[in-house]
Protein backbone atom coordinates (compact mmCIF):
# COMPACT_ATOMS: atom_id res chain seq x y z
CA UNK A 1 0.00 0.00 0.00
CA UNK A 2 2.92 2.32 0.62
CA UNK A 3 3.38 2.71 -3.11
CA UNK A 4 0.00 4.19 -3.91
CA UNK A 5 1.50 7.61 -4.37
CA UNK A 6 -1.37 9.59 -5.81
CA UNK A 7 -0.96 13.35 -5.76
CA UNK A 8 -4.71 13.58 -6.00
CA UNK A 9 -7.76 15.65 -6.52
CA UNK A 10 -6.74 18.65 -4.49
CA UNK A 11 -3.90 19.37 -6.83
CA UNK A 12 -6.36 19.83 -9.68
CA UNK A 13 -7.98 22.63 -7.75
CA UNK A 14 -5.16 24.84 -8.92
CA UNK A 15 -5.85 28.25 -7.56
CA UNK A 16 -7.90 27.03 -4.66
CA UNK A 17 -6.53 28.47 -1.46
CA UNK A 18 -7.70 27.18 1.87
CA UNK A 19 -6.63 28.75 5.09
CA UNK A 20 -6.22 25.93 7.53
CA UNK A 21 -8.92 25.26 10.03
CA UNK A 22 -6.18 24.54 12.55
CA UNK A 23 -6.97 25.62 16.05
CA UNK A 24 -5.50 29.04 16.22
CA UNK A 25 -4.38 28.61 19.80
CA UNK A 26 -2.13 25.61 19.08
CA UNK A 27 -1.03 25.91 15.48
CA UNK A 28 0.10 28.88 13.46
CA UNK A 29 -2.33 29.41 10.57
CA UNK A 30 -1.07 28.47 7.13
CA UNK A 31 -2.43 28.74 3.62
CA UNK A 32 -2.56 25.85 1.17
CA UNK A 33 -2.09 26.97 -2.40
CA UNK A 34 -2.52 24.28 -5.01
CA UNK A 35 -0.61 21.26 -3.77
CA UNK A 36 1.63 23.05 -1.35
CA UNK A 37 2.17 25.59 1.40
CA UNK A 38 4.40 28.20 -0.23
CA UNK A 39 5.05 30.30 2.86
CA UNK A 40 7.33 29.24 5.70
CA UNK A 41 5.26 28.43 8.80
CA UNK A 42 7.62 30.57 10.86
CA UNK A 43 8.15 33.33 8.33
CA UNK A 44 11.86 32.34 8.22
CA UNK A 45 13.81 29.71 6.33
CA UNK A 46 14.63 26.57 8.33
CA UNK A 47 18.06 25.27 9.26
CA UNK A 48 19.03 22.24 7.15
CA UNK A 49 21.62 20.92 9.63
CA UNK A 50 19.09 20.88 12.45
CA UNK A 51 16.62 19.34 10.00
CA UNK A 52 18.98 16.47 9.27
CA UNK A 53 19.41 15.78 12.98
CA UNK A 54 15.63 15.80 13.41
CA UNK A 55 15.05 13.37 10.54
CA UNK A 56 17.58 10.98 12.09
CA UNK A 57 16.13 11.32 15.60
CA UNK A 58 13.78 8.41 16.28
CA UNK A 59 11.35 10.56 18.22
CA UNK A 60 10.58 12.47 15.01
CA UNK A 61 9.48 9.04 13.65
CA UNK A 62 10.72 9.58 10.04
CA UNK A 63 13.24 6.75 9.88
CA UNK A 64 10.91 4.33 11.61
CA UNK A 65 9.22 4.19 8.20
CA UNK A 66 11.69 5.74 5.73
CA UNK A 67 15.22 4.96 4.76
CA UNK A 68 17.42 7.64 3.27
CA UNK A 69 20.91 8.60 2.19
CA UNK A 70 22.36 7.89 5.66
CA UNK A 71 24.72 4.95 5.12
CA UNK A 72 25.91 4.92 8.74
CA UNK A 73 22.52 4.94 10.39
CA UNK A 74 21.28 1.54 11.57
CA UNK A 75 17.67 0.39 11.65
CA UNK A 76 15.94 2.41 8.98
CA UNK A 77 12.40 1.44 8.03
CA UNK A 78 11.15 0.19 4.68
CA UNK A 79 7.48 1.11 4.97
CA UNK A 80 7.92 4.20 2.84
CA UNK A 81 9.98 5.53 -0.09
CA UNK A 82 13.69 6.21 0.36
CA UNK A 83 14.15 9.91 1.03
CA UNK A 84 17.14 10.19 -1.32
CA UNK A 85 16.29 12.67 -4.08
CA UNK A 86 13.04 13.99 -2.55
CA UNK A 87 14.34 17.54 -3.03
CA UNK A 88 14.34 16.91 -6.79
CA UNK A 89 10.94 15.27 -6.81
CA UNK A 90 9.11 17.88 -4.76
CA UNK A 91 9.31 21.62 -4.22
CA UNK A 92 9.74 23.11 -0.75
CA UNK A 93 6.09 24.13 -0.88
CA UNK A 94 5.00 20.55 -1.60
CA UNK A 95 7.33 19.09 1.02
CA UNK A 96 5.90 21.50 3.60
CA UNK A 97 2.30 20.44 2.90
CA UNK A 98 3.29 16.78 2.93
CA UNK A 99 4.79 17.14 6.39
CA UNK A 100 1.93 19.26 7.68
CA UNK A 101 -0.76 16.89 6.38
CA UNK A 102 0.29 14.02 4.09
CA UNK A 103 -3.31 12.84 3.82
CA UNK A 104 -3.87 15.71 1.38
CA UNK A 105 -1.73 13.80 -1.12
CA UNK A 106 -3.02 10.34 -0.35
CA UNK A 107 -6.08 10.03 1.87
CA UNK A 108 -5.17 6.43 2.77
CA UNK A 109 -1.56 7.22 3.62
CA UNK A 110 0.00 5.82 6.76
CA UNK A 111 2.29 8.84 7.02
CA UNK A 112 1.17 10.88 10.02
CA UNK A 113 0.13 14.51 9.67
CA UNK A 114 2.87 16.22 11.64
CA UNK A 115 1.16 19.56 12.07
CA UNK A 116 -2.42 18.74 12.84
CA UNK A 117 -4.36 18.33 16.07
CA UNK A 118 -7.93 17.89 14.85
CA UNK A 119 -9.64 14.72 13.63
CA UNK A 120 -7.49 12.45 15.82
CA UNK A 121 -8.94 9.74 18.02
CA UNK A 122 -7.92 8.54 21.48
CA UNK A 123 -4.65 10.48 21.61
CA UNK A 124 -2.52 9.73 24.67
CA UNK A 125 -2.58 12.28 27.44
CA UNK A 126 1.04 13.34 26.92
CA UNK A 127 0.44 14.15 23.28
CA UNK A 128 -3.08 15.56 23.31
CA UNK A 129 -3.71 18.83 21.44
CA UNK A 130 -0.06 19.03 20.39
CA UNK A 131 1.21 18.59 16.86
CA UNK A 132 3.90 15.90 16.42
CA UNK A 133 6.40 18.55 15.31
CA UNK A 134 6.55 22.29 15.91
CA UNK A 135 6.46 24.86 13.11
CA UNK A 136 10.21 25.43 13.60
CA UNK A 137 10.95 21.71 13.35
CA UNK A 138 8.87 21.39 10.17
CA UNK A 139 10.79 24.28 8.59
CA UNK A 140 14.14 22.74 9.56
CA UNK A 141 13.13 19.41 8.04
CA UNK A 142 11.80 21.05 4.86
CA UNK A 143 15.12 22.90 4.52
CA UNK A 144 17.01 19.63 4.87
CA UNK A 145 14.79 17.59 2.52
CA UNK A 146 15.17 20.29 -0.13
CA UNK A 147 18.94 19.58 -0.13
CA UNK A 148 18.38 15.87 -0.95
CA UNK A 149 18.78 16.20 -4.71
CA UNK A 150 19.91 13.67 -7.26
Amino acid sequence: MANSLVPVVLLAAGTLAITSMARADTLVPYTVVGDGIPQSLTGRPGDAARGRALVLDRTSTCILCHSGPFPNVKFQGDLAPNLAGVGSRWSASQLRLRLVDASRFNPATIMPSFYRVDGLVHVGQNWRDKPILSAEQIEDIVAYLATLRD
Partner: protein
Amino acid sequence: MKRACAMLVAALLVAAAPLRAAEIPPDQRRSGYSFMGPDSKAMQDDDTANPGMLWVLDGEALWNKRPGAANNACADCHGDARASMKGVAARYPAFDKALGRPVDLEQRINLCRAQHQQAPALDYESHDLLALSAFIANQSRGMPITPDGDSQLAPFIARGHELFMQRQGQLNLACANCHDDNWDKRLAGAAITQGQPTGYPMYRLEWQTLGSLQRRLRGCMTGIRAQAYNYGAPELVELELYLMSRAAGMPIETPAVRP
Protein backbone atom coordinates in the same frame (compact mmCIF):
# COMPACT_ATOMS: atom_id res chain seq x y z
CA MET B 1 -15.26 29.06 -7.41
CA LYS B 2 -18.22 26.68 -7.60
CA ARG B 3 -16.00 24.19 -9.41
CA ALA B 4 -13.32 24.56 -6.79
CA CYS B 5 -15.85 23.93 -4.06
CA ALA B 6 -17.07 20.79 -5.77
CA MET B 7 -13.50 19.61 -5.94
CA LEU B 8 -12.92 20.31 -2.31
CA VAL B 9 -16.02 18.28 -1.49
CA ALA B 10 -14.70 15.48 -3.67
CA ALA B 11 -11.38 15.63 -1.86
CA LEU B 12 -13.08 15.47 1.53
CA LEU B 13 -15.15 12.49 0.41
CA VAL B 14 -11.98 10.71 -0.62
CA ALA B 15 -10.46 11.63 2.71
CA ALA B 16 -13.32 9.86 4.47
CA ALA B 17 -12.60 6.64 2.56
CA PRO B 18 -12.24 3.62 4.82
CA LEU B 19 -9.00 1.93 5.59
CA ARG B 20 -7.92 -0.40 2.81
CA ALA B 21 -6.94 -3.18 5.14
CA ALA B 22 -7.43 -6.64 3.79
CA GLU B 23 -7.58 -9.54 6.18
CA ILE B 24 -4.73 -12.01 5.96
CA PRO B 25 -5.80 -15.17 4.09
CA PRO B 26 -5.61 -18.25 6.37
CA ASP B 27 -2.82 -19.88 4.37
CA GLN B 28 -0.63 -16.79 4.77
CA ARG B 29 -0.92 -16.47 8.53
CA ARG B 30 2.44 -16.54 10.30
CA SER B 31 3.40 -16.52 13.93
CA GLY B 32 5.86 -13.90 15.18
CA TYR B 33 8.17 -16.91 15.59
CA SER B 34 8.70 -17.16 11.84
CA PHE B 35 10.03 -13.59 11.70
CA MET B 36 12.77 -14.23 14.27
CA GLY B 37 16.44 -15.01 13.76
CA PRO B 38 17.86 -18.48 14.43
CA ASP B 39 19.12 -17.56 17.94
CA SER B 40 15.73 -16.44 19.23
CA LYS B 41 14.05 -19.42 17.62
CA ALA B 42 16.52 -21.77 19.29
CA MET B 43 15.89 -20.06 22.62
CA GLN B 44 12.14 -20.63 22.30
CA ASP B 45 12.51 -24.21 21.09
CA ASP B 46 14.78 -25.45 23.87
CA ASP B 47 13.01 -25.63 27.23
CA THR B 48 16.33 -25.50 29.07
CA ALA B 49 17.23 -22.23 27.30
CA ASN B 50 13.74 -20.66 27.22
CA PRO B 51 13.57 -18.18 30.12
CA GLY B 52 9.76 -18.43 30.09
CA MET B 53 10.02 -21.97 31.47
CA LEU B 54 11.07 -20.50 34.83
CA TRP B 55 7.62 -18.93 35.13
CA VAL B 56 5.98 -22.16 34.01
CA LEU B 57 7.77 -24.01 36.82
CA ASP B 58 6.79 -21.38 39.38
CA GLY B 59 3.23 -21.60 38.08
CA GLU B 60 3.19 -25.32 38.70
CA ALA B 61 4.23 -24.74 42.31
CA LEU B 62 1.50 -22.10 42.73
CA TRP B 63 -1.06 -24.49 41.22
CA ASN B 64 -0.57 -26.65 44.29
CA LYS B 65 -0.46 -23.86 46.92
CA ARG B 66 -3.39 -22.79 49.11
CA PRO B 67 -3.26 -18.99 49.11
CA GLY B 68 -6.61 -18.01 50.62
CA ALA B 69 -9.05 -18.38 53.49
CA ALA B 70 -10.87 -21.22 51.72
CA ASN B 71 -7.69 -23.28 51.98
CA ASN B 72 -8.07 -24.57 48.43
CA ALA B 73 -5.36 -25.06 45.85
CA CYS B 74 -6.15 -24.85 42.12
CA ALA B 75 -5.24 -28.52 42.14
CA ASP B 76 -7.86 -29.31 44.78
CA CYS B 77 -10.61 -28.37 42.32
CA HIS B 78 -8.94 -29.04 38.96
CA GLY B 79 -6.62 -31.94 39.72
CA ASP B 80 -3.71 -32.51 37.39
CA ALA B 81 -3.39 -29.46 35.13
CA ARG B 82 -1.77 -31.61 32.46
CA ALA B 83 -5.18 -33.12 31.87
CA SER B 84 -7.67 -30.53 33.10
CA MET B 85 -6.02 -27.42 31.62
CA LYS B 86 -5.20 -28.91 28.24
CA GLY B 87 -6.77 -26.71 25.56
CA VAL B 88 -8.12 -24.13 28.01
CA ALA B 89 -5.84 -21.25 27.00
CA ALA B 90 -6.52 -22.11 23.34
CA ARG B 91 -10.16 -20.99 23.73
CA TYR B 92 -9.76 -17.93 25.98
CA PRO B 93 -11.02 -15.20 26.37
CA ALA B 94 -14.27 -17.06 27.06
CA PHE B 95 -17.81 -15.91 27.83
CA ASP B 96 -18.65 -15.77 31.53
CA LYS B 97 -22.36 -16.34 31.94
CA ALA B 98 -22.57 -14.82 35.42
CA LEU B 99 -20.80 -11.62 34.39
CA GLY B 100 -22.40 -11.53 30.95
CA ARG B 101 -19.10 -10.65 29.30
CA PRO B 102 -15.87 -12.25 28.12
CA VAL B 103 -13.02 -12.77 30.58
CA ASP B 104 -9.43 -13.49 29.65
CA LEU B 105 -7.26 -16.14 31.27
CA GLU B 106 -5.79 -13.73 33.82
CA GLN B 107 -9.29 -12.58 34.81
CA ARG B 108 -10.45 -16.20 35.07
CA ILE B 109 -7.57 -16.97 37.43
CA ASN B 110 -8.54 -13.99 39.60
CA LEU B 111 -12.22 -14.99 39.55
CA CYS B 112 -11.23 -18.42 40.82
CA ARG B 113 -9.11 -16.81 43.51
CA ALA B 114 -11.99 -14.60 44.65
CA GLN B 115 -14.81 -17.14 44.40
CA HIS B 116 -13.18 -20.44 45.25
CA GLN B 117 -10.02 -19.59 47.17
CA GLN B 118 -11.02 -16.38 48.99
CA ALA B 119 -7.66 -15.02 48.04
CA PRO B 120 -6.88 -11.44 46.91
CA ALA B 121 -6.67 -10.72 43.19
CA LEU B 122 -3.23 -10.80 41.62
CA ASP B 123 -2.18 -7.72 39.67
CA TYR B 124 -1.63 -7.89 35.93
CA GLU B 125 2.10 -8.45 35.25
CA SER B 126 2.73 -9.61 38.83
CA HIS B 127 5.07 -12.57 38.97
CA ASP B 128 2.44 -14.95 40.34
CA LEU B 129 -0.25 -14.10 37.79
CA LEU B 130 2.24 -14.45 34.93
CA ALA B 131 3.49 -17.73 36.38
CA LEU B 132 0.00 -19.22 36.76
CA SER B 133 -1.13 -18.10 33.32
CA ALA B 134 2.12 -19.32 31.72
CA PHE B 135 1.73 -22.70 33.43
CA ILE B 136 -1.89 -23.02 32.31
CA ALA B 137 -1.24 -21.83 28.74
CA ASN B 138 1.77 -24.15 28.48
CA GLN B 139 -0.67 -27.08 28.82
CA SER B 140 -2.08 -26.01 25.42
CA ARG B 141 1.29 -25.73 23.70
CA GLY B 142 1.01 -27.10 20.17
CA MET B 143 -2.79 -27.12 20.22
CA PRO B 144 -4.70 -25.01 17.68
CA ILE B 145 -6.39 -21.85 18.87
CA THR B 146 -10.09 -22.77 19.07
CA PRO B 147 -12.17 -19.76 20.05
CA ASP B 148 -15.07 -20.20 22.45
CA GLY B 149 -18.11 -20.71 20.23
CA ASP B 150 -20.60 -18.95 22.53
CA SER B 151 -22.72 -16.80 20.23
CA GLN B 152 -23.00 -14.15 22.93
CA LEU B 153 -19.36 -13.30 22.20
CA ALA B 154 -20.18 -12.01 18.72
CA PRO B 155 -20.72 -8.33 19.64
CA PHE B 156 -17.53 -8.32 21.73
CA ILE B 157 -15.48 -9.78 18.88
CA ALA B 158 -17.02 -7.22 16.53
CA ARG B 159 -15.98 -4.39 18.86
CA GLY B 160 -12.47 -5.81 19.03
CA HIS B 161 -12.36 -5.88 15.25
CA GLU B 162 -13.55 -2.27 15.10
CA LEU B 163 -10.81 -1.25 17.51
CA PHE B 164 -8.25 -3.08 15.41
CA MET B 165 -9.34 -1.13 12.33
CA GLN B 166 -9.64 2.24 14.10
CA ARG B 167 -6.92 4.78 13.41
CA GLN B 168 -5.88 6.29 16.71
CA GLY B 169 -3.26 8.19 18.61
CA GLN B 170 -1.18 11.17 17.62
CA LEU B 171 0.37 9.09 14.80
CA ASN B 172 -3.13 8.25 13.55
CA LEU B 173 -2.43 4.60 12.80
CA ALA B 174 -4.63 1.52 13.18
CA CYS B 175 -3.40 -1.89 14.27
CA ALA B 176 -4.44 -3.05 10.79
CA ASN B 177 -2.16 -0.49 9.10
CA CYS B 178 0.81 -2.41 10.43
CA HIS B 179 -0.40 -5.94 11.12
CA ASP B 180 -2.72 -6.53 8.13
CA ASP B 181 -1.18 -4.24 5.52
CA ASN B 182 2.55 -4.07 6.25
CA TRP B 183 3.55 -7.25 8.05
CA ASP B 184 6.14 -8.06 5.42
CA LYS B 185 7.99 -4.80 6.13
CA ARG B 186 10.26 -3.35 8.79
CA LEU B 187 9.59 -0.53 11.23
CA ALA B 188 13.04 0.89 11.92
CA GLY B 189 14.98 -2.34 12.48
CA ALA B 190 12.08 -4.47 13.72
CA ALA B 191 10.06 -6.89 11.63
CA ILE B 192 6.41 -5.86 11.69
CA THR B 193 4.80 -9.19 12.38
CA GLN B 194 1.16 -10.06 11.86
CA GLY B 195 0.47 -9.41 15.54
CA GLN B 196 -0.62 -12.99 16.19
CA PRO B 197 -1.36 -13.73 19.88
CA THR B 198 0.01 -17.27 19.84
CA GLY B 199 2.70 -17.16 22.48
CA TYR B 200 1.38 -15.38 25.58
CA PRO B 201 2.44 -14.83 28.19
CA MET B 202 5.83 -14.68 26.50
CA TYR B 203 9.38 -13.71 27.23
CA ARG B 204 10.32 -10.52 25.42
CA LEU B 205 14.04 -9.84 25.20
CA GLU B 206 13.36 -6.10 25.15
CA TRP B 207 11.44 -6.39 28.44
CA GLN B 208 13.89 -8.85 29.97
CA THR B 209 10.88 -10.56 31.48
CA LEU B 210 7.67 -12.41 30.78
CA GLY B 211 4.67 -10.29 29.82
CA SER B 212 0.98 -10.68 29.04
CA LEU B 213 -0.82 -10.05 25.77
CA GLN B 214 -2.36 -6.95 27.36
CA ARG B 215 1.12 -5.59 28.06
CA ARG B 216 2.01 -6.08 24.38
CA LEU B 217 -1.20 -4.36 23.22
CA ARG B 218 -0.59 -1.44 25.55
CA GLY B 219 2.93 -1.18 24.13
CA CYS B 220 1.65 -0.90 20.57
CA MET B 221 -0.92 1.69 21.66
CA THR B 222 1.73 3.80 23.34
CA GLY B 223 3.86 3.35 20.22
CA ILE B 224 1.27 5.15 18.13
CA ARG B 225 0.88 7.68 20.96
CA ALA B 226 -2.65 6.60 21.81
CA GLN B 227 -3.96 6.46 25.37
CA ALA B 228 -3.33 2.85 26.40
CA TYR B 229 -6.36 1.25 28.07
CA ASN B 230 -5.87 0.21 31.68
CA TYR B 231 -5.06 -3.42 32.38
CA GLY B 232 -8.28 -5.41 32.48
CA ALA B 233 -10.26 -2.79 30.53
CA PRO B 234 -13.09 -4.28 28.43
CA GLU B 235 -11.50 -2.82 25.30
CA LEU B 236 -8.31 -4.83 25.82
CA VAL B 237 -10.28 -8.03 26.39
CA GLU B 238 -12.23 -7.30 23.18
CA LEU B 239 -8.97 -6.84 21.28
CA GLU B 240 -7.64 -10.09 22.74
CA LEU B 241 -10.84 -11.83 21.63
CA TYR B 242 -10.60 -10.49 18.12
CA LEU B 243 -6.91 -11.40 17.86
CA MET B 244 -7.65 -14.97 19.01
CA SER B 245 -10.49 -15.33 16.50
CA ARG B 246 -8.20 -13.91 13.79
CA ALA B 247 -5.60 -16.53 14.76
CA ALA B 248 -8.02 -19.50 14.95
CA GLY B 249 -6.22 -22.70 14.06
CA MET B 250 -2.71 -21.41 14.76
CA PRO B 251 -0.83 -23.40 17.41
CA ILE B 252 -0.25 -22.05 20.92
CA GLU B 253 3.47 -21.53 21.68
CA THR B 254 3.45 -20.44 25.32
CA PRO B 255 5.94 -19.50 26.59
CA ALA B 256 7.13 -17.91 23.34
CA VAL B 257 10.26 -15.80 23.02
CA ARG B 258 10.16 -12.54 21.06
CA PRO B 259 12.72 -9.78 20.41
